[in-house]
C-alpha cells in the first residue's frame, strides 16, 4: 500500500536581544554558568515580568518576513507546570493571542516551488539549562528567560526533503533579518517534528509521532526518512501507531522512544495578570516593517536582475550572508559578476573549507579579488596562472605583486606571439600537412607547441586566433 506522509514542524528560535524577554538581565551564550541572571530569571518571590520591547520588535520582523498577520494587541498567558528547569513554575507564553497568524514560506525541492503555510508565531521565554550528572543535576539559569519565538507550521510537508527545506528556509530567513543566531548545534534554533502516515485515499490523519532532539538541518531529513519507514513497517505488518515522543540518535540514524503520550497534559493556561494587554502603535509596527533587512527571496530576485547570475550560483551564494556581503562589496568596483562569483564559489570557498575559515574573518579583501578577476579579463594572466595565486591571494597579498614575484605574466604582445607562431610552424611541417588533410586537431597541437615554447605565458586565446589565421594560407 502507498502512504501519504504528513509532517508539521514546531521551531523554537532564541531572539538575539540584549536583555531577556521579561527581565533586564543580559542574554548570553557560553558565559559562565549563572552569571547572567537576576531575581526575575530565578523566579524569586515578588518579581514581576516586564515585556522586552526589542523582543517584540524582532518577533514582528520575523512575522513580517514570513508573511504573517500581526496582532497589534499583545497579550501573554501562563503555562503552568512543575519542572526543575522552570523557575517560576509557569512559563509566560502567548497561548490565546499569538503575535502572528497565517503566514507562509516558499521552499524549493527538486526544482519545484511549494508554499508551506505557517499557522502562528508566538513569543515566550526559555527555561534553564539542565546538566544531568550521575548523582546530581546542575542548573544553569543563564538561559532562563531568554526570548523565544515559536513558529508552528501547518502540516503541509510530505517528505524529509520538504521538511528539511522548510527548516532551512526558516533558518535562512531569520538569519538574514538578524533576529536570531539560528544555530541548531548551540540550541538557538530547535525543531520538533510531527510525522504521521495515512493510506493513500484516506483523508483522516494518522496518529502522529513527535521527534525531538534534532540538532542539525540534515538530521531533520534523516530522522523523518527513518521515521516514515518505521511507521510504514508497523502499518504494513498490521500494527497500530501509538502517539509517542521520540528522539533522533545521530549515531545510529534511528529515532528512539522517549515517552508515550497518555492524553494531553493540562497546562492550565490563563492570561498573565501582571501584563495588561499592550496595544502596539500602528506607526511603530509600520516603521519596523518599512525598515526590514533584505529577505533571501528579495535578494535572489535582485541578483538575477542586476547580475544575471544563474539559479544554481544564486542559491549557493544566498545561503551565506557573509559571502553575499563580500560579493556585493566586490561588485562596487567590478563589472564581472560571473567572474567574481566563480572565484567565490570555486577556489575561495575551496580554500576556506580546507582551512576551516570563513569569508568574513579571512585575509582576502574584495578589492584583491576584483583585481585578480580583472587581470584575467584583461589577459594579463591566464586562468590557469591565476590558480597558482590562490594561496597568496588568501594570505592577503596583492595579486599583481605576487604574479610579478612568481614571474607569471601572460604574453599578449602581437609581435612576440607572431614570432613564436612562425617558429612553431616552421618546426612542424608534418602538422601543417595534417591540417591540410583536414585533421582539425592539428591546430590544437600547434597552439600547444606555442604555449610550451612560451613556458605557458602566451595568451592562449590570442595564440589560437593567430594560428588559425596563419594556417589559412596553407588551405
Amino acid at each position, binding site marked *: 500500500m502507498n502512504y501519504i506522509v504528513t509532517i508539521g514542524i514546531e521551531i523554537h528560535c532564541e531572539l538575539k536581544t540584549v536583555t531577556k524577554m521579561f527581565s533586564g538581565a543580559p542574554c548570553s551564550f557560553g558565559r559562565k554558568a549563572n552569571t547572567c541572571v537576576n531575581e526575575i530569571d530565578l523566579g524569586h*518571590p*515578588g518579581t514581576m515580568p*516586564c515585556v522586552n520591547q526589542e523582543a517584540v520588535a524582532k518577533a514582528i520582523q520575523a512575522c513580517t518576513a514570513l508573511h504573517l498577520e500581526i496582532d497589534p494587541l499583545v497579550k501573554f498567558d501562563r503555562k503552568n507546570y512543575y519542572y*526543575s528547569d522552570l523557575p517560576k513554575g509557569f512559563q509566560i507564553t502567548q497561548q490565546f493571542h499569538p503575535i502572528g497568524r497565517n503566514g507562509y514560506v516558499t521552499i524549493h525541492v527538486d526544482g519545484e516551488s511549494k508554499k508551506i503555510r505557517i499557522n502562528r508565531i508566538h513569543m515566550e521565554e526559555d527555561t534553564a539549562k539542565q546538566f544531568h550528572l550521575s548523582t546530581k543535576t546542575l542548573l544553569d539559569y543563564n538561559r532562563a528567560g531568554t526570548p523565544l519565538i515559536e513558529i508552528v507550521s501547518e502540516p503541509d510537508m510530505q517528505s524529509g526533503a520538504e521538511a528539511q527545506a522548510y527548516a532551512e528556509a526558516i533558518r535562512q530567513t531569520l538569519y538574514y533579518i538578524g533576529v536570531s543566531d539560528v544555530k541548531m548545534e548551540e540550541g538557538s534554533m530547535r525543531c520538533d517534528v510531527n510525522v504521521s502516515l495515512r493510506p493513500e485515499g484516506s483523508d483522516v490523519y494518522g496518529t502522529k509521532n513527535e521527534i525531538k532532539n534534532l540538532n542539525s538541518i540534515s538530521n531533520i531529513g534523516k530522522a523523518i526518512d527513518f521515521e516514515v519507514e518505521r511507521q510504514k513497517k508497523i502499518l504494513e505488518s498490521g500494527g497500530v501507531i501509538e502517539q509517542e515522543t521520540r528522539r533522533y540518535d545521530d549515531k545510529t540514524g534511528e529515532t528512539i522512544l522517549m515517552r508515550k503520550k497518555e492524553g494531553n497534559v493540562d497546562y492550565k493556561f*490563563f492570561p498573565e495578570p501582571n501584563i495588561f494587554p499592550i496595544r502596539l502603535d500602528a506607526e511603530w509596527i509600520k516603521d519596523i516593517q518599512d525598515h526590514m533587512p533584505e529577505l533571501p527571496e528579495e535578494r535572489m530576485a535582485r541578483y538575477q536582475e542586476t547580475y544575471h547570475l544563474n539559479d544554481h550560483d544564486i542559491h549557493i551564494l544566498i545561503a551565506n550572508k557573509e559571502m553575499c556581503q563580500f560579493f556585493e562589496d566586490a561588485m562596487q568596483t567590478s563589472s564581472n559578476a560571473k567572474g567574481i562569483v566563480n572565484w567565490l564559489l570555486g577556489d575561495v570557498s575551496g580554500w576556506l573549507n580546507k582551512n576551516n575559515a570563513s569569508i568574513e574573518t579571512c585575509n582576502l579583501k574584495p578589492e584583491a579579488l576584483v583585481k585578480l578577476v580583472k587581470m584575467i579579463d584583461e589577459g594579463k594572466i591566464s586562468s590557469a596562472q591565476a590558480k597558482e595565486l590562490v594561496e597568496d591571494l588568501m594570505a592577503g597579498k596583492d595579486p599583481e605583486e605576487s604574479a610579478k614575484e612568481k614571474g607569471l605574466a601572460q604574453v599578449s604582445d602581437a609581435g612576440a606571439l607572431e614570432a613564436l607562431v612562425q617558429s612553431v610552424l616552421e618546426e612542424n611541417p608534418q602538422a601543417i600537412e595534417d591540417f591540410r588533410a583536414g585533421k582539425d586537431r592539428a591546430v590544437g597541437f600547434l597552439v600547444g607547441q606555442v604555449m610550451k615554447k612560451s613556458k605557458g605565458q602566451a595568451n592562449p586565446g590570442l595564440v589560437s586566433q593567430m594560428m588559425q589565421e596563419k594556417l589559412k594560407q596553407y588551405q
Partner: protein
Amino acid sequence: MIREIVENKAQVEETCTKAYEKAKAYQDKLNAVITFVDPKEQLENLPEEGLMRGVPIALKDNVNTKGILTTAGSRILSNYVPIYDAAIAEKLKAAGAVVIAKASMDELAMGGTNKTAYIGPCLNPWDTSRITGGSSGGSAALVASGVVPMAIGSDTGDSVRKPASFCGIVGIKPTYGRISRYGIIPYSSSLDHVGYFTRSIEDACITLQVLAGRDDRDMTSSYREVPDYRALLNADMKGKKIAIFGNVLDAIANENTKALFFDLVEKLKEKGAIVDTFYFNEDLMKAMLPTYYLIANCEATSNHSNLDGLRFGVRETGASMEEIMTNSRTKGFGPLIRKRFVIGSYGLFEENQDKLFRKAQKVRRKIVDELNVCLKDYDCLLAPASSTIAPRLDEASGDELSDGYLVAENHMVIGNFSGYPSMTVPMGFEEGCPIGVNLTCRAFEEDMMFNIGKAIEEITGYENLIAEVK
C-alpha cells in the same frame, strides 16, 4: 504624627530606638513581629531630607527586604533572605523611613485572622484575647499599639481594611496601579494591592505621597502623576454625595454597629453631605465571596508554583528533583494553603475553567459594572467595615454561607475587584474594642477618599487612637 517626627530632627534617633524597643517589649503580648530590624545602621545612613525622615515603620513580612529575612508568614520561606528590595522598600528608604520590624501575617497573605502565620497568631492590642484580623495583622497591631505611626500591609480581599477595623486605625488600599507591587510576595496578582496603616488621615496622605508612582518593574503601575495629597486635604463635606451600601446594612445583625454607623451618617449630613442608600443586585452580592475565592485561589496556585525548595526557601530531601519539590511543598505549607491550592488548581483545569475561573471573572466584571453605576452618581460607597468588633481567638469563624457572612463580612472585596481606592477609618467602640467604617471611591480619587475620611475623623475625634497593651 509623621510630620512631628520629621520636624523634630533632634529626636529622630531616640524615636526609632524607642519604637524598636517597644516592639520587642510588646512581642510577648502581641506576637506581631516575625523579624526585628535594628534601626542603628539605617539611622547612620539617613538621607538629608525626606517626607518620612527618621520615622520608624514596620513592613508586612511579604515586602522583600534585601538581606533581611522575609517569610510571608510561611514555613517554606522561613529561611528566605531576599536578594533584592521591593520597590516600596526603596521608596521608603529614600524618604528616610526606618524599618524596625517585619510584621506577622497570615501565611502567604491568605486569611483574615492572622491565625495562620507560621509563628502563631497575632493578638489584638485592644484585647489580647481577640484576633487582629488579617492578613496584615502584625502591621495593624504595631500601629494600633503606638509602636510605629505607619506600617505597610497588603490587601487582596480586605487584608488591610479588615484589621484596621478591628484595631481602631486607618487602613488604606489605594487604586490598583497607584503603588508598585514589585517585590511584594504575591497572593493574587489581579487583586493584590499594597496598602498601609496609620493613625491619622494626614499620615495616610503623607505615606501615599511617598509610596505612589510609576515603577517600570511593575507594568501594571500607573503613569498618572502623584498629587500632593496633604495639600489637597480638607474636610469639607458640602455637596459630597454618599451612597450607603444598603445590602451590607441589611445583612448586619449587630444593632450597635448599625447605631454607630447611622449616627456617623447623620453627622456627615450635618456637615453638608447628601446621603442615599444604594442597593446592589442581591445575587451579585452573594456571589462576591465565591467569585473572590476562585480568582484569588486560581492566581495564587500559579503565583506560588515557584516555591519548590530548589532555588530558595526550605528544601526537603528527596530522591529526585520531583520528589524534592513535592516534599518541600507538602511540608512547607499549612493545611489552609494546601486546600486553597487544590481549589485554585481545580478551577484552572481546562475542563473547569469555563464554569469556574472564567465565569468568576465575568461575575467580577458584573460586580464592577454595578459599582460603576453607583459611583457615577455618588462620590463614595459607605458601609461598616465589619459587622462586629474583632472576634475572640477561639471563636469559630461562623457559617461561611450565611447572608451575614457572605455579605456583611466580605463586601470590601469590591475594592479589589474594581481596583478602586478604599479605606477603613475608626467609627466607634463596643466592649472597649474598636470597629471601623469603610468607604470606596472612584479610581485615582484618593484625594476625595482622604477628604471624606478627614471629615469622619473630625466627627469621631479618633485621630491617633492608641491601644493600651495589657
